[in-house]
């Protein structure tokens, strides 16, 4: 089988997709957003608690989707807890550049998100990898509108 498929579907990804972390609702959330990937109809709802200093105190999601989108949501929630809004945005930019292959200059360290960089070889799946992120940014920016990856 092809290496790029193996790079995409690493064990970590399969694992996160089967047992997503921070999966569930968050009663006390003060910001939420829903995202939809019109490509496959997958939907994802994101809840988080943003404190007065714009620090993400807690973040959870519910929804269904392909392995890539679930793993991405799962890993993202792990990484965003404790980050400020600005840090979250910056991280997304770095992540986005990595999965679209548009990063220039030396590779920055994106931590655990690294496991998703195989998406680079699958342009049609970039939307799956970024859906959770778009939704999270909409939530913490308190954009009411539903997010789509189109």
């Amino acid at each position: 089988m092809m290496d790029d498929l193996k790079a995409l579907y690493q064990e970590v990804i399969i694992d996160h997709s089967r047992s997503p972390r921070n999966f569930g609702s968050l009663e006390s959330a003060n910001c939420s957003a829903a995202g939809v990937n019109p490509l496959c109809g997958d939907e994802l709802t994101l809840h988080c608690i943003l404190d007065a200093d714009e620090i993400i105190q807690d973040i959870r999601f519910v929804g269904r989707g392909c392995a890539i989108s679930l793993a991405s949501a799962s890993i993202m929630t792990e990484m965003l807890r404790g980050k400020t809004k600005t840090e979250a945005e910056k991280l997304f930019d770095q992540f986005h550049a990595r999965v679209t292959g548009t990063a220039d200059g030396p590779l920055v360290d994106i931590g655990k998100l690294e496991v998703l960089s195989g998406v680079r070889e699958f342009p049609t799946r970039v939307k799956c990898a970024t859906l959770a992120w778009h939704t999270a940014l909409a939530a913490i920016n308190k954009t009411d509108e539903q997010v789509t990856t189109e």
Partner: protein
Amino acid sequence: MQSALTIDRERIATAAIDPTAIREQFPILSEIVYGKNLVYLDNAASSQKPLAVTQALDKYYASQHANVHRGVHALSDRATEAYENARKLACQFVNAEHVREIIFVRGTTEGLNLVASSYGRHRLKPGDEILVSEMEHHSNIVPWQIIAEQTGSRVRMIPMDDSGQIIQEEYLELLHEKTAIVAITYVANSLGTVNPIKQMTQRAHDVGAVVVVDAAQAAPHLEIDVRELECDFLTLSGHKMYGPTGIGILYGREELLDAMPPYQGGGEMIKRVTFSGSEYAEIPHKFEAGTPNIADSVGFGEAAKFMWNIGFDAIASHEHQLLEYCHERAEEFSDIRIFGMAPQKSGVFAFEIDGIHAHDIGTIVDREGVAIRVGHHCAMPVMRHFNVAATARASFAVYNSIEDIDRLFDALDNARELFNG
């Protein structure tokens, strides 16, 4: 159904169609993707085009093109003849009585919108009902929702059962004197179900409703006969039946089309224009405002001829064998769930695999050169019925072979390996 071990390869090999010979007429089927020979099983989304069709486009542009209908010069005459000849072929294709009952449209979606907007606005009153089945493509739902909102009428859903068949008793329950329109698909794109159009039409006529048939998925597989079906409107897309993109036809019964207001306004569809008002042309021109898609209409006619040359019986039996083989092979695997088990079913194999999202399946088989469609197939209510977000779908055309299906099943093994180790 037979078990996999007893698959009768010989029976299949003696089918009326030789896909190898047919494949030569489709240059794209020789494409190599990721180093593999292409296996194209996404035909319900759009089929590939034989040389006869693309060469007809070339020939049209190289020796016949001009604007149609209003010219007195030689090329305009040639173009008009080519265009109107395509209309005759389209008329034969659905066995309509009159050539003027055939309107060229962009595709099924435009055909349905034309009927919803023009017939709907003319006919629907507040409180009227439009029946739409649960297995419709979005194109046969949304236009009705839009016109219902504008006219104060109401869209009601005819439910289906878990085999993917319309529940006829429920349909009869829903039909009553308020029913103005019944909009149903001939073949369901997400399930393959072939609906009993004739019977449903008769029941609709009993209460005075008109029937609009979405034949997008029927056209590539079945011989369509609007007089036999007794339907009032029927529409289909060229690009799904070996024809070019951008062209399709709408059939409408003459009396209905005559009584309807125009859909779009412009050149070609008028008799006389003044600033105090305009008079409209006769059908079909009343519904063809502006310069039509002349070249692709010609290509559409060529696609119809391509299908006639192979023959509908041969097409149906070939595709039926592919479908049976698919079902047989699926039996080998306990992790495959098939969507759509209607006894009357055309060449669609929709499925999911336990624990692997359709989207991931799509990506994995693609790397083996196998093109299938994954997602909601523009049929979200069907997905909701089965409580899934997406399914995987392989759909067949005359150029597909038993080997193509073996390639699909081999590729599915890769998905299992990646996900289940």
